[in-house]
Structure formats: C-alpha cells, structure tokens
C-alpha cells in the first residue's frame, strides 16, 4: 500500500477498520523483515569462516569476549549459518549478561534485535521462534535454549 496513503489512513476514521489495520501491520512486518535481512547481510560475522576468524581474537574489547570462556565456547559451537547469515544459536548463554552486553554480542551477527526478547520473559513466551533450532534449510526443530532465525 502506498506509504502516504497508509499515514493518512492511520489518522482517519477508516483506520478503525480491521482490514486497513491488518494491511498496515502486514506492511510494517514486511519492512521489519527487510531491515533484519539487511542487518544480517551487513553483519561482521556472516559465516562459519568469519566466526572461525573472529572467535580467535583475544582482545577484551571485542564483543565476543564479553562472554566468559565457557559461555563463549558454548555459544560459538551452537552457531549455525547459511548463505543469508546466522540461522540458529543457543540463547541461554546470555542469561547472566545485561541486555546491553547481549546487544553488543548479537550485533556482531546482525541480530541484536533479539537481545530485548531474550531478556524479557513475557516477550520470550510470545516469540514464536524461541525454543527452536534450525536443523536444516527452512526447518526448525524444537530445542530448548535455542532460537531459530528467519534466515533458516
């Protein structure tokens, strides 16, 4: 739907119509999905090769080293990629990190938006991709502690 028309409709009595609201929400969802794809495409770590390189950096200021040794190993081993970027990871390693630190780590992969969900129990219950692991292309399998990303 035309962007301008959507804006006008948002403020018109017609906006109370369920169909218009649904269209607006669907448009919104599409735009968010596009942003997420672009973020992952432009992320620093997009592949296993990238991960192999960057996980070798020891510098404390590199975000991956915010995790303690054991958590870092668990997290790195849980990561899976395809040609679009990250597809799945173990999110329980972030339980002892702040939302800010989680954000920093996940920004390496272009999925920093999941940091708020991970640290919000209400959103965690509602999100439909938590508790699933990407096991092959376009297939998520139930797996506690994992997130299945849209790139799966």
């Amino acid at each position, binding site marked *: 739907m035309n*962007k301008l028309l*959507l*804006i006008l409709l*948002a*403020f018109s009595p017609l*906006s*109370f119509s*369920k169909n218009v*609201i649904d269209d*607006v*929400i669907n*448009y*919104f*969802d599409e*735009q*968010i*999905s*596009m*942003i*997420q794809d*672009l*973020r992952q495409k*432009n*992320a*620093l770590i*997009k592949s296993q*090769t*990238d991960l192999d*390189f*960057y996980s070798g*950096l*020891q*510098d*404390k*200021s*590199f*975000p991956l080293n915010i995790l303690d040794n054991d958590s870092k190993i668990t997290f790195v081993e849980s990561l899976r990629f395809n040609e679009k970027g990250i597809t799945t990871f173990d999110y329980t390693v972030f339980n002892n990190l702040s939302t800010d630190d989680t954000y920093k780590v996940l*920004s*390496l992969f*272009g999925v920093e*938006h*999941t940091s708020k969900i991970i640290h919000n129990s209400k*959103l965690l219950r*509602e*999100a*439909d*991709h938590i508790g*699933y692991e990407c096991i092959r292309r*376009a*297939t*998520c*399998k*139930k797996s506690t502690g994992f997130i*299945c*990303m*849209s790139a*799966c």
Partner: protein
Amino acid sequence: MTTKTFNIPTTSLKKGLSSIMYKFLLFFLIITNVNAVTQYENELGIIENIENAHEQVRALEYFYKKTFQPQISSQKIELYTEKQLKNIIKTFQLITFYAQNQEITQEHLKYFEVLRQKKWAETKDYEDVFGALNHSRLFQQVELFYTKYPQFNLPKPPVIQALKNKNPNDILILALDQNHKNTLITEVFKFSESVEILVVSRSGCHFSQRAANDIAADEPLTRFLKEHSKWLMHPSSRWSISSFADWNKKYPHFATKYIYRAKDFPMIKSWETPVFYFFKNGVIVEQVIGWPKEGRMQELKSYIKKHFSVSL
C-alpha cells in the same frame, strides 16, 4: 515443523485498535527510514574499538579480503556514482589509516584515481592517499604522488637510503641522517639479550615531550637511559620529518627512530605514547605507561633498580 520466521510479536499491536497511542506508534514506525543502509559503519565501528592494535589490523585485513573487496569489485569502478565512490574511499581511508598493507593501499590509490579523474576528489582525499602510501612504505609511489600534485602542499617526502643485503626476517627502523637533510637511513633493529628499555614516543606528543623534559633535568637518569634505552616512533600516515628532526636536536640523548613495520613488534599491543617498555630477550617484563603532570620518575627508577640493580 515448518519454517519459523522471526517476527516481533504482533498480537499485542492488534490490541487497542482504537487507541490513539497505537496510531501514533504505527505512524512513527512507518515513516522512519526503513530502507536506509549505512554500509560497513557497523562492522568498522566494532573493529575500530578493538584495543589490541595487531588484532585490529588483522580484523581490518580480514574484513577487506572477505567482505569489502569482493563487494566493491563486483562492479566496474567507472560505474560507481559519486556518493558510492566516496563511501568506498571513506572505507579505504579507515583501513589504510590503521593497516600497513601495500596491496590494500594500491587498491585505495586505484579507486582514488577514478575519483580524481571524475573531478570528485577533495584535498583531504589527496592527503589521505599520500598518508596511506607513506604508511605502507611505498616510497617510490610517495615520490611520484608528491611530484604529480604539487598544488596540495603535501609534506616533502624524505629520501630513504635503503638497506643493502637485507634479510627478509630483519626488523627495520628508519633513522635520521645527521649529515643530509630530509634523509632517513634504513637500519636493522635487534633486541638485546640482556634487559633494555624501549621507549615508544612521538615527537608531536605533548606527554612524550614532558617525559623527555623531566628526564633531561635528571642527569644520572639521562646518562643511564642514553646507554640502556632505544626511543622509537610508531609508523604513522602523518609523519613529519621536520618534527622528528626537531625532537632529535632538542633531545640528542633520546634520539628517536621510526619503526618501519608495526607487525615486527607483536608484543607491543597498543601504540599509546609515551610508554617505557622493559624488555628482556624480546619479552616485555615491565612497563611504565603515560607521563602525567606529576611524572612517573619514581616508577621508572624503581624498575631500573629492579632490573638493572642500579639506584638513581
């Protein structure tokens, strides 16, 4: 289980359809620039924050090889718009500022030439390329660049006396030729087997000057450091031979030399100045970092006493 796509939960958005707040939220979310992509800023920002200088350079070189270079070479340079080309040059400038890499610098020059031919280049672009050529030790090209663009008042490049019979594993440094103006002599640097002090300083660094002044006012310490220290400067894209010469004239006991290649000193993780590194057989055993107003004389002397058994 079929594909699960990630969506921000929408059920909560559907609630309160008639709410004014909901309409405002949609309004602002829709009109924000959802199509904007600022390429590379995120990745480069993360890499720039890496404190270990060597890891930072490795990460930049990896980023160049795996991400940047494949993307920019997917299209003919001549077809890039002004905005695209300037963004590419900006990324090159950041990489070559930190990394002494001749291959990357040559590519930087290539893209700069197209920018220049299309008359889109600004003075800063010329200065940055000149700096990159200096930094990566492409001295012949520095000379050519300087001669080709006299209108930009670039600093006159020094004459570099190359080393004869160079060994590929030699650690090189550049020393000021006392007999010929604006000339640097290439020398081989060797770590001592006994304890020595490496002072990383910079002629333009106020704190380095303060350290040199404080030490110069202490005769026994000056005599000691003249014998047991080497003063070095980190390679920089902005080197000033005149400033270098001034320093050596003012502080002849602490005459400094340029490091040719930062990678030859992997044990020095950060090029802050001034830092007094106590080395034994190429390994750092002690460091005195920085020189605040009150100085670090006591710390310096206590380490000298510890490692040289000398009380000053």
